[in-house]
């Protein structure tokens, strides 16, 4: 084979190898980037749905607890008044005060509510963490070499972190000196 022909073959081989590697790398990186972008977008909707479910659950449980408290507040004085007036008439007040079993306010609904709040908050935090993690993975892919070369010009995916005013202010100012819990 002539040297010029051989050189041509070698250069063709090198070009095919480099071109093939670049082509398949681009396809791989591009597909991964699109998949991650779609996952981030889907997770944003999951987060919104989760947030809605969390507040619906908490609001309904709180309503049940409040309803119970209101009913109890209405019923309790009337109940006690009825009892004592009847007892006073019979002159038995001093004896019955120490022996009768008064209706007790059941705190289990509030205990249930507090556990639900913690559970829902933890679950929501995990959903939001997944969104943050997907976003981080996407940014790492786009910003680190060789992804930065392959995916140059691709936009970042915007995400919004759901947080409280207090947390946002603390994060922005670096100050959290409000020590009052209630």
């Amino acid at each position, binding site marked *: 084979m002539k040297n010029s022909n*051989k050189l041509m073959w070698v250069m063709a081989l090198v070009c095919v190898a480099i071109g093939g590697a670049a082509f398949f*790398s681009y396809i791989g990186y591009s597909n991964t980037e699109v998949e991650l972008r779609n996952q981030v977008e889907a997770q944003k909707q999951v987060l919104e749905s989760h947030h809605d479910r969390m507040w619906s659950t908490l609001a309904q449980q709180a309503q049940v607890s409040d309803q119970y408290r209101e009913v109890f507040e209405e019923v309790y004085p009337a109940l006690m008044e009825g009892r004592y007036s009847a007892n006073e008439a019979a002159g038995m007040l001093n004896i019955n005060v120490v022996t009768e079993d008064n209706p007790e306010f059941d705190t289990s609904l509030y205990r249930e509510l507090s556990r639900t709040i*913690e*559970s829902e908050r933890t*679950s929501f935090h995990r959903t939001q*963490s997944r969104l*943050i993690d997907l976003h981080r993975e996407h940014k790492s*892919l786009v910003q680190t070499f*060789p992804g930065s070369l392959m995916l140059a010009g691709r936009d970042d995916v915007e995400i919004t972190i759901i947080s409280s005013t207090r947390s946002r202010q603390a994060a922005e100012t670096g100050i959290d000196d409000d020590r009052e819990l209630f």
Partner: protein
Amino acid sequence: MLVWLALGIPVITTLVLYHFWKHEVVIWEFIIPFVVSLILVGICHLVIQKQMTDAIEYWGGIVTKAEYYERWNERVPCVHPEYCTRTTTDFEGNSRIETYQCGYIHPYDVANHPPYWQVRNTNNERIRISQSHYQRLVTKFGNSRFVDMNRNYHTRDGDKYESRWDQSEELAEITTTTHSYENRVKPSRSVFNYEEVSDEEIASYGLHTYPRIHTSYRQPVILGASGMDVRAAEREFQLLNGYLGSRRQVRVFVLLFENQPREAGYIQEALWIGGNKNEFVITIGLDGDRVDWAHVFSWSEKDRLKIDTRHFIEEQSEIDLISLAEWLRPQLRQRFERKEFEDFSYLKVDPPLWAILLVFFLVIAANVGVSYFVIQNEYREYRRNGWRRL
């Protein structure tokens, strides 16, 4: 991934070969460095990924039967070739003696199969045990049955004896086996990963490492019970793991901490990287017999179950692990759901720098070897056209 950049090395190899040894290398030989490098990098990539994401989880089960397979032997085709010689004559009339395989030395060989003992469990796994272990299980289960294996034997007909569990809780023999799975969180930079725990923290908080499996299939699940008699509670938790291990894919560990702050529970979680995917880990801080704090961690997304478990423990004035196990068993059966680690498949695993350098070194070495081979082999460029074999 950076290891794939090693595929640039065969490009350099090709150019060097062409520049310095263009007459010793024929055209198709230039492809060899690319193929070898591609295969090598591909294998390295798979090995590195497997090595970095590999994790071990523990499965609970219950022995359903113990088996004893007797020694036996059988005839198998002979593997010892017999060689003969013969005289052949080539087309020029020269005769020579050649050796050829004309059969086998024996009509058959005999394969000996030694005896062995094993158990089968509710996860349909087989675990080898010792002879004395088998005898102890036969005594425990109180039955033994002969099973004719109907083997096509040579001189020794080995059969089987088996002893079966009667499904009662009293006689349940709990097993623990290890299984590997892919954990992409562990080597990643994910927000779900944990801070690394230092040796000083392990020592100062009295943190626990995973207990080893001993006596073929036993593993303690209550750790840190120094000075407490937890044998009855250990049995209860073993039963829990045995019964729910296969049904609910859950494994419970109870880790006790004497006079340690609540942070010990959090750092234990970091040390075990959240636990394995099937685990439900209960950490309890104790001040004598009094419960100081509890912290429950698991990859399971059933958060309410973890919170209820924590409250159940913290509402105990004195630690009562047996009542905890009795309460937990139906709770786990009804409410536990194992985390699917497929959910973390989006995580990219970057190999460490030393692994990348090692891959580059291997590819360079392979390219040098391939180059030497293509230069030294019998294929050379033919002066006028094409290639020729020397």
